[in-house]
């Protein structure tokens, strides 16, 4: 009885180990950063998304089946200038009265090289859904991991900067987005 129970337990553990679901990871906000670099008159105009969250289900050894979900509170966008921070709330830009949040969802994560992955998914920004590929590196040690990467978006694909602003001058069309996110395995 005792032996059988232990045997069953061991078998169960083994089978769980074989098909172990990918771990759930939560974000350490204080140690994470999501920033972007727009351009004005071809000069870098950087900004930070001060409030965002990342939820991830991921096994770096078996990335397929992983799932990434990022939400960004656009009201907490900071371009280090009170005037600019005020201006980007307007309908021509983020239109914060109607769209408070941006979202990226991916359930298609692949490894491209050791510790390098891409997450293909949908970015929902200002009411527009667009397929986006997010490359990232993964540095994990035990229950902590850092994922980092960058990508370039065309702001007009999402209607960011409408009307006269839709031309690439004086505010450029391409915006680089950079992230470095510290994740902790959910207990």
């Amino acid at each position, binding site marked *: 009885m005792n032996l059988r129970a232990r045997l069953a337990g061991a078998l169960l553990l083994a089978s769980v180990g074989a098909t172990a679901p990918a771990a759930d990871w939560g974000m350490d906000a204080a140690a994470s950063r999501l920033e972007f670099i727009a351009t004005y*008159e071809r*000069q870098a105009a950087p900004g930070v998304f001060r409030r965002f969250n990342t939820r991830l289900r991921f096994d770096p050894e078996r990335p397929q089946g992983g799932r990434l979900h990022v939400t960004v509170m656009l009201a907490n966008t900071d371009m280090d*200038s009170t005037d600019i921070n005020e201006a980007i709330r307007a309908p021509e830009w983020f239109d914060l009265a109607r769209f408070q949040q941006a979202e990226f969802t991916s359930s298609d994560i692949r490894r491209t090289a050791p510790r390098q992955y891409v997450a293909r998914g949908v970015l929902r920004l200002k009411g527009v859904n667009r397929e986006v590929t997010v490359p990232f590196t993964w540095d994990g040690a035990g229950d902590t991991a850092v994922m980092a990467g960058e990508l370039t978006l065309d702001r007009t694909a999402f209607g960011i900067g409408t009307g*006269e602003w839709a031309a690439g001058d004086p505010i450029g069309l391409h915006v680089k987005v950079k992230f470095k996110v510290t994740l902790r395995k959910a207990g």
Partner: protein
Amino acid sequence: MLRNTRESWGAPAKLLHWTMAALVFAQFALGWLAASWRLSPTKLNLFVWHKSTGILLLALVTVRIVWRLLNPTPALPAGLPRWERAAARASHLLLYLLLVAMPLTGWIINSTANIPFRVFWLFPLPDITAPDKALEELAKKVHLGLFIALALTLTVHIGAALRHHFVKHNDILARMLPGKGRRA
């Protein structure tokens, strides 16, 4: 003659005077347009023109002050009342101060507002202060106050020049005009 004498202004002094006169009036128009234009690429471009012209004026006034200190200053006509001499000296000093202070306060606004800016789209202007909303608001008020002071002082300056020419019939205005004053 390039250099000033006790009787006449040299060509560089005249060129600086009239170039800056034209730029200062252009600057009034640009500043007013830029401030009142609705937020649009045009507004940003008007500000680039206004800020660039301001930096150009700051460079010119620096050259002008140095040139004035290195040269004799043409004397005022004999027989000018003491109060007019004192008023002329005070208003000219005030004009120089305002021509320096206007671009400097503009530069402070640009630095505190932390908006990237390249002079005539050519090279970036370094910041002279950290981003600071309170200081930005203060500098904007001072900039506007200095503009009013400059407009008033220029009114006196131009009025006095016209009075010397048409009422008192001396050569104070004429000797600043191009081509005059070679008789020295």
